[in-house]
């Protein structure tokens, strides 16, 4: 199965809004998702300006923006994606 792609924003606004630790996502994936997720970094997703820095950190899950991202909300979104494909 094509893995789900998670793009983590490493731009200034997202990083200071506690997004920097999101690069450790791999370690926070539950066992059942291992190998099903591809993690990438992006310099700035440009959502901080187009939407609002108050909603940072941002990530994209298969290209879909997720605001106020946390490990939990990212995992949830990945599972939704996988469920949707099945």
């Amino acid at each position, binding site marked *: 199965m094509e893995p789900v792609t998670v793009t983590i924003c490493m731009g200034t606004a997202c990083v200071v*809004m506690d997004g920097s630790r999101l690069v450790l996502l791999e370690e926070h994936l539950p066992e059942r998702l291992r190998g099903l997720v591809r993690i990438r970094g992006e310099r700035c997703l440009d959502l901080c300006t187009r939407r*609002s820095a108050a909603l940072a950190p941002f990530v994209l899950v298969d290209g879909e923006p997720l605001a106020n991202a946390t490990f939990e909300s990212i995992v949830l979104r990945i599972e939704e994606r996988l469920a949707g494909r099945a």
Partner: protein
Amino acid sequence: MVDDMNEGGPRGRCAPATSPLVPDFIEVDHFGLACGGEHLSGDLFHSRSLEEGNRVVSVLADGLSSGVEAAVLASVTASMALEYVEWNIDTAKAAAILMDSLPVDPVRRISYSTFTIVDARRDGRTRIFEHGNPPVLLIRDGALVPLERTVLGQPRWGNRRLRVSEFQSSVGDRIVLCSDGVTQSGMGTPALPLGWGEPEAAAYALSRLARSPDLSSRRLAELLVDRALWNDGGAAGDDITCGIIHLRRPRVLQVLTGPPFDRARDREFAALVDRPGSRKVVCGGTTSNILARELNREVEMDLALPDREVPAPSAMAGVELVTEGCLTLAKVGQYLEAGACPRRNAASRLVELLLESDVIHFQVGTAVNEAHQDPALPVELDIRRNVIKRIAALLETRHLKKTLLSYY
């Protein structure tokens, strides 16, 4: 620091990629180790930059034997030579005074300190005065150039001699000075009973340069000293010192940071990346997005080494390094201030690139990033321009770099 607000300002025309303010220059550096077990080296390599950097005088002095006594002799010799030069006494005269005044060992009839003085000018005029050290090497286009030496003697010098050479250097020339700790390294070992020898040491320098023609003076000196230490079996049998004088084109680094104030200039700003003659660094997420769009290039982030303090670096064709903006630059400022990089991250990589360059041209986009002004952010982000000015000032004062600032 040259702050050419008029030239590259938001409404001005853009500044040239390589500036006429940046002529050829003389890079001098050295590396040395004390004889095994000693704290002080009896070799000394000192340089002085004169006439606003148009002339550099370097001295390598090697005090007889090793330890404190040798260190004092070498230090007196080197400082005398540089003091004379500072007093505007011609180098030839200074060398002769040294020959006159150096104490001589009564048994061996040799000076208590040997010395080599190189007087190099940025226009290429070079004079070398040698007494007792291994002959200097002149390396041009990857090969040794033999020097024509005039041998001077005086009745009061006994059988001691001063060898003088005078020549016109070309851009790219390196002059290599070694103490006998380099050329005689390994002496008495089964592998090198007679020591490494001058021809072998020279061949080694040439081979390293053939592999990496852009070696910095510091690195080449380090390589020669390391190799000599290796010959000695890991414990220096004598003080080992190497100094290198390199006349070369300056290495220019362009730092592109910040989106241009006027979007209409995005293309012109992005085009800086492909101007030849310098290396490039990009700092800032929005900035890298603009370049990626205008140049139609991928920006690939490397998440292999996550760092708690500084966001990971990215790569883009034609650019040495792409980093996040404000946080990384603030960290670069801190590292330069502290004089050390305690961690390996995008900021330390940028510091390395800055220090490897002679001239740093900051191309600063002045658009305000509205997202950074958002009161929701838990930290206050410094204005890019201020951070850059601080970095430029540190580079100028602490590291003797030339910096240029242009605004877009």
